[in-house]
């Protein structure tokens, strides 16, 4: 039986995924020992776990150096290209939203709006679908700053509770897309190791919370 490699997004999604893997009966003790390793062998299942940053999970799965990956829908929408997106894992829930300063009316006037975001592709596609021409400006850190400093009219960002926005005088005006963790599969792996992958997916799905 071939050993599958799964890439997990480091941090919160990793913890949640490990909880499910443990429910499946997989021995994940080495991962929880505070070790700094990046690749772990599971002693009682033909599986290796790779820890990576979200966008890298996609790169590794697309190139087929990892067969499976757990990554947020946000990263898939911004960086995704060709792989199978097979399971909605149901955790890591939040959403993409368009937000402005509370006092602003985003749609008034004829000026081309400028949108600040960490997710230029998501923003570009959202406004393309609306048939609206906008300027997009990529911001790396706290995107909420951009409208406050006056460099942008609105932001496209992930909203979980909305607290940061509220404290900074912003509010979401439109939901763009719901987000949750997804299980992705390399296309070639799926065809070459279908049995192993389906077996794993089935067990994983059975142990997800509703």
């Amino acid at each position, binding site marked *: 039986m071939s050993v599958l490699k799964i890439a997990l997004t480091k941090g919160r999604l990793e913890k949640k995924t490990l909880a499910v893997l443990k429910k499946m009966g997989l021995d994940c003790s080495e991962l929880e020992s505070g070790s700094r390793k990046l690749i772990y062998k599971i002693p009682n299942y033909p599986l290796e776990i790779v820890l990576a940053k979200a966008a890298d999970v996609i790169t590794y799965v697309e*190139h087929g*150096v990892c067969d499976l990956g757990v990554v947020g829908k946000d990263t898939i929408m911004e960086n995704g290209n060709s792989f199978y*997106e097979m*399971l909605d894992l149901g955790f890591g829930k939040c959403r993409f939203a368009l937000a402005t300063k509370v006092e602003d009316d985003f749609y008034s006037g004829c000026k081309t709006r400028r949108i600040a975001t960490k997710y230029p592709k998501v923003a570009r596609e959202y406004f393309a679908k609306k048939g609206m021409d906008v300027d997009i400006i990529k911001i790396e850190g706290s995107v909420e700053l951009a409208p406050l400093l006056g460099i942008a009219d609105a932001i496209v960002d992930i909203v979980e509770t909305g607290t940061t926005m509220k404290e900074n005088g912003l509010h979401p005006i439109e939901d763009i897309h719901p987000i949750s963790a997804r299980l992705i599969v390399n296309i*070639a792996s799926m*065809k*070459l190791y279908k049995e192993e992958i389906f077996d794993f997916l089935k067990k994983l799905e059975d142990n997800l919370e509703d």
Partner: protein
Amino acid sequence: MKKNDIKTPIGTRDRLFDECRARRRVEDSLRSLFLRRGFSEVSSPSFEYFDACLAPENPIPQEMLYKMSECTGKLLVLRPDMTTPIARIAATKLPEQMLPARLCYVEKVYRACREDKGMSTEILQGGIELLGYRGIEADIMMIVMAVDALRACTDKKIAIELGFSGYFKMLAGRLSMSDAEFERMRTYIENKNFAALSDMLDGFGDSDATRALKNLSRMFGGIEILDNTDGELAYLKELYRGLEEAGVADVISIDLGLVHQIDYYSGIIIRGYMEGVGTPVLSGGRYDNLITSFGKEVPAVGFAIDIDAVAECVGVEEMKYDTLLHITQGAVRCGFEYLDKHDNTTLSSCKTIEESRAYAEKNNLRLLVIYADGTILEVK
């Protein structure tokens, strides 16, 4: 050193020694198989007129085309695939009486991609096309060729999967959908995004078509997935029986969710995989309508193999020499003749016999010195 001296353009690379040999070996295996099986080689220019590559059926978007201009001012592109040149050849160069025709090629194609994604922009492809031949025998022949072509390159595990564009189109045709909705549904099926597909189709009521479409992304595996399916898929069953007879059924699987480039293909879709490569190494299918856009109705089926991806995975054995030959002044002709006759011998690049001796000692080789009169001495 100037700014662009070190780096080759995005997605390209220099290939040295073993990389070239590995590529050459795959290329040679494929070409000799194609020729043995009655396919004749053709070659076309690396660039084409821009509008020739912009047929509405062509699945390659214009941002993936490298563009330049001719001295007349006409816009040119580096060809993004070999199918378009083959279609042009079929429609404009092959006289009617030469059809059906079997063509093969080994050529480079060019597709721009984003920076730093680790993708190739210059891709060496080996492929075949069967023109003017409709029907199940042609499809079977092509699929068996696909299996044999990958087999000719490697002993590693391979898999060939078949899709069938007509089934999806037929089901989708029964629902009234906008183009945008159709594309969204197609993407969900292609990505095997079960949950999103099911949610979307709930909005189209409950019918045989929606149920079949919901199931489509799960419809992949062995021939058993066609159990309990109706007449529309009878063709695939018959095809599979033909492949069993040809002795290749063990590596064949079926994926009815293979719906990429759906406007391009008009029948079977073929994709091939090889253990150790994370992307399809073989891609093709039947496209009976493409050549029509060049003004002649010629049905066609074909596939192309990504030679570089296969070569990188298969690799090559190290060259084995046990003898080093030092050619002294005036001995070039007889030295070369000796090399021609002895596979185990390589030429020394050293200037003096002393340097050659040191090199031979270091690399554990026997050293021969050849003189102008043809005398050969072994140096200890």
